[in-house]
Each structure stands twice: as C-alpha cells, then as structure tokens.
C-alpha cells in the first residue's frame, strides 16, 4: 500500500510547494505574527499573551484556509484536467489514490505549520522570552491545530469526491462553522427544553466534528497545562473522524465514473 500512497502524497506536496499562492499565504501569516509584536508593545505587560494568542490564531486561520482551498480541488482538479486517467492506469487502487492525496496535503500543512511555529518562536524570543516547562502547552495547542487541519482536510476531500470545488467549499465551511459552535447549538437546545429541538441539537452535537475540542489557544496563552487525557482523547477523536470520512470518500469515489 505505502508503495502507491507514498508517491501520490509526495507529488501532492510538490504541487502545493510549487504553487505561488502558498508562499503568499505563509508570508501573510508570518507578517501577522510579526504584527503581534507591535500589538503586544501597545498593551504593556501582556506581550506574551497577545503574541501567543494572535500567533496561534494566525497559524490556525491560514492553515484552515489552505486546507479548505487546496482540499476541495484535490480530487476535482485531477478529474477535470484528466491527469487522473494516466495515473489510475497504473496499478493503484482508487482509495490508495485518495489516501495519498490526503496524506500529501496533510504533509504540506504540517511543514507550513512548522515554519510558522518557528516564526512564532522568533517573535517570542524578540520580546525576551525564555522557554519554560509550561510552554509545552503551546506545542500541544499547535498539535491540536494540526488535528483540526486533519479533520478539515478530510471533510474537503470527502466533498470533492462528488461535487464541485464551489459547493465543497460551502459544505466544508458550513460543517466547520457548525462544528465550532457545536457547544452553543447544544446549549440552545438544552435551553429551550423542547424535546424535538433538543433531539436535533443533540444529534448535531454528536454528529458534526466538534472543533471546540481542539481549541487550546487560550490555555496555551495563559501557560495552563493541557491534561494528558485531553491530548490522547483529541488524537483519537480526530483519527476516528478522519477514518469515517476517508472510508465514506473511498466508497463514493470507487463507484464513480470519471467523466
């Protein structure tokens, strides 16, 4: 399996790396982290807090933009440009192709995030920061952001297996936003105490990916330790959800007639 998934992943990574849009995005995110230093200087005493907050938010937002916008084109573009035809003529299964595309984009996002993390560290050193034990929570927060990317990428890939990038973007964004506010949606249901509404909001809460789980930015900014249970629970949560999406995507895509 890895013999076929690996090359597809690396090629996907190469495509992203050779795209100029990527560099603009990374540059923009780094600028934003830089700007955090300025904001931090204005608000005396909380430089560290502001830089970590803004820095992690920038990493998260730009990664999500990339995950969605590259993710929705992963499969669609290969079908539309018919580059997939000569690839699928090789001994590769369709699900291996999907997993390879997925892994490639995830690799791209991980490498990007690594660069931006270095940028964040540089900004923190600039304001006179020494690495402390409690700062491991920043790394954990970044790890959670990566898990979030893994989920969003899988969503985008799933939709791109059967619809246009435009609609895929819409669906992915819709589910992402629902997932971010899953807690609030549930709270609304609990608040109304209407059994029908409650049923719907509870169902939404447990079915959509609950992105709230992965938000550890404020914990990291305050230097609060992130419990180890949350670490592995989130890892497992993301792994399970990605498995569902890739499984469903494979089932859909394996049956699809290519134009």
């Amino acid at each position: 399996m890895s013999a076929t998934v690996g090359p597809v992943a690396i090629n996907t990574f190469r495509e992203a790396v050779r795209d100029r849009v990527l560099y603009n995005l990374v540059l923009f995110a780094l600028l934003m982290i830089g700007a955090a230093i300025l904001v931090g200087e204005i608000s005396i005493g909380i430089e560290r807090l502001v830089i970590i907050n803004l820095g992690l938010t920038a990493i998260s937002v730009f990664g999500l933009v990339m995950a969605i916008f590259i993710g929705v084109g992963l499969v669609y573009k290969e079908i539309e440009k018919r580059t997939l035809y000569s690839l699928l003529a090789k001994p590769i299964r369709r699900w291996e192709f999907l997993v390879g595309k997925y892994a490639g984009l995830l690799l791209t996002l991980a490498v990007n995030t690594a660069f931006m993390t270095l940028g964040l560290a540089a900004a923190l050193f600039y304001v006179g920061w020494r690495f402390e034990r409690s700062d491991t929570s920043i790394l954990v927060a970044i790890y959670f952001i990566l898990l979030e990317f893994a989920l969003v990428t899988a969503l985008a890939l799933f939709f791109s297996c059967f619809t246009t990038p435009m609609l895929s973007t819409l669906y992915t964004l819709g589910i992402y936003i629902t997932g971010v506010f899953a807690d609030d949606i549930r709270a609304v249901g609990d608040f109304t105490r209407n059994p029908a509404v409650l049923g719907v909001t509870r169902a939404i809460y447990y079915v959509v990916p609950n992105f709230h789980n992965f938000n550890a930015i404020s914990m990291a900014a305050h230097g609060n330790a992130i419990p180890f249970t949350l670490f592995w629970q989130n890892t497992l949560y993301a792994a399970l959800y990605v498995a569902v999406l890739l499984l469903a995507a494979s089932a859909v895509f394996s049956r699809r007639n290519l134009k």
Partner: protein
Amino acid sequence: MNAMSTPAIEILGLTKDFPVGFWRPRMRRSLDSLSFQVDEGEVFGFLGPNGAGKTTTMKLLMGLIFPTSGTARVRGRSIDDVEMHREIGYLPEQPYFYDYLTARELLDYYARFSNYSAAERRERVEKFLERVGLAAAGDVQLRKFSKGMLQRAGIAQAILHDPPVVILDEPMSGLDPVGRREVRDIILELKKQGRTVFFSTHILSDAEMLCDRVAVLAGGKLQGVGAPGAIVAIKAPAMEILFEAREGRALPAGLAERATRIGGRCRVEVPEEGLYAALEQLRGCEARILSVSPVHPTLEDYFFRLVGGTAVSRGLEEISR
C-alpha cells in the same frame, strides 16, 4: 487453458449507458453489447467516427468508468483486478499531465508505481525520454509543452514499464507528419518486441499501414472486424470533373442530375471506370473541361456513408467475414 491461446484483450458484451439531461436524466446507450478479441502480439486498429464509442470502450477497459453490463479480460485477468494494470499501458485521448512537473519528473513519478530500484528508474526514464524524442525537453515544465510534446510524453508513460499490452487512444492526433511517423515506428517496434497494441484512430491510412486487424465501430455498435485490406476494397475510387457548360446546350441525361452547379461552373463525380464515357458525353455537348482529379475518400466520408446506411452494407459484410 494454454498460455499461448489466451487472447491479449477479450471484450465480452460490454454495454455502457450514460445519463443525459440535467433535471431528469435519462440513460442513453453509448456502447451496445460490444464483443471482440485482440490476439497476443497483434497490432489492432479500432476505427470509427467521432462519438462511435472508442474512447468509452478504452476507458471501460482501464477501469475509469464501469460497464452497465458485460465485462472484459486482459491476458485472462478481469478488468476489476488492479494487478492487471501491471501488464497494460494506456495513453488517454488528448492526454494532459501535471503541468508543474518536468517531463523527467513525470516519468519518474509514474515509474514509481512499478517495482524498480532507484537506479533502474533513472535509467528507464532517460531511455524513454530519448525514445519519444523528448530528451532535450526533459527539464522543461509540462505547462510549456505543445500538444505534440504532450502526446509524446503520454506515449512514453504508457510504455515505460514494458507492458505486454498497450492501449493507445488516438495516438497520432495532434502530431505533425514527422511526429506521426515516429509514433508509427514506435508501434512497429512494440510489435517487433511481441507486444500487443490496441489503438484507436480515425485516420484510415494509419490503420492500413500498421494493423494486422481492425474493428469498425459506429453508433456504439460493432460494424465488423477484419483485415484492413477489406476496408480498402470497399473504398470506391472516384474522379471529380469540373467544367463549364456551353450556353444553350443541355447536359446529357445521366450527367445532368448528378452535376452540382457552383456559379457558372459544374462539378460531377463519377466512378473511375466511367471517366472516359463521361468525358465523351461532355465533349458531345461542347462543355469546357476545367479539371479532372481523383477523389480521395476520407475516412470521414467512409464513416459518413457507414452511419448513413445502405451504401456500404455490402462492404461491411465483406469485412465481417
């Protein structure tokens, strides 16, 4: 079953319906219980006008689309078996590749799906770049490639892993005469190596020159399978005469109804054996002969007649033996 007797490609009642229409899709049959087989070591031409279903057949063989009914086997293996792809090379119609890669990177990428060592892979990539005449363009990004160069890159990736069966969808299209000639040479070389080549075309001369056998497809139905000579035989050679009729002189019966008028001039097409008789008739009415030239029926003409119906049905019976 004896290995020698296993056909390279067996097509068994392949049928494909496509949904047409946006709001209430209905199914339209694009391929109708197609059955024939391509033998090991043959160069086999797949002929038919545009929309006949050639590309559809090849995509079904490659597992890019799935049949409504029927199946096919390649060297005895079902087309659902992914291992079958180790033994087959495929050039899609109007191929397009990752345009951010160079030709060298593209071939290297595809070579990774066969189990070659890194050194073997490099060697192979160079060899096949050379073979399709892209050695000099190996480091150029594919986005800068012309249509002909893409076609060559496509052929290189199809034969890169030495597959015993090669499927080429319109391999000559988009190529200049030199390019066509090179593709013909490659096909003949593959044949010499004992490989099976199954290619589609609508250029009759290519088929005549290369193929051991051809299949003719029209409207999704097989019209016949046979040696290309059979097709050449049904090509009725004709002569075209351009002339100016003399004022006040009526054209003789038999010519008058067949002539078409273009301004003051007339054009008439006659069978080769009737040329002199026709010229005699024209002299009789003092027409001025402007030109006499042979009509080369294009394959399009041939297919037009084929689809149009009756004229060639005799020819068809001939080739379906």
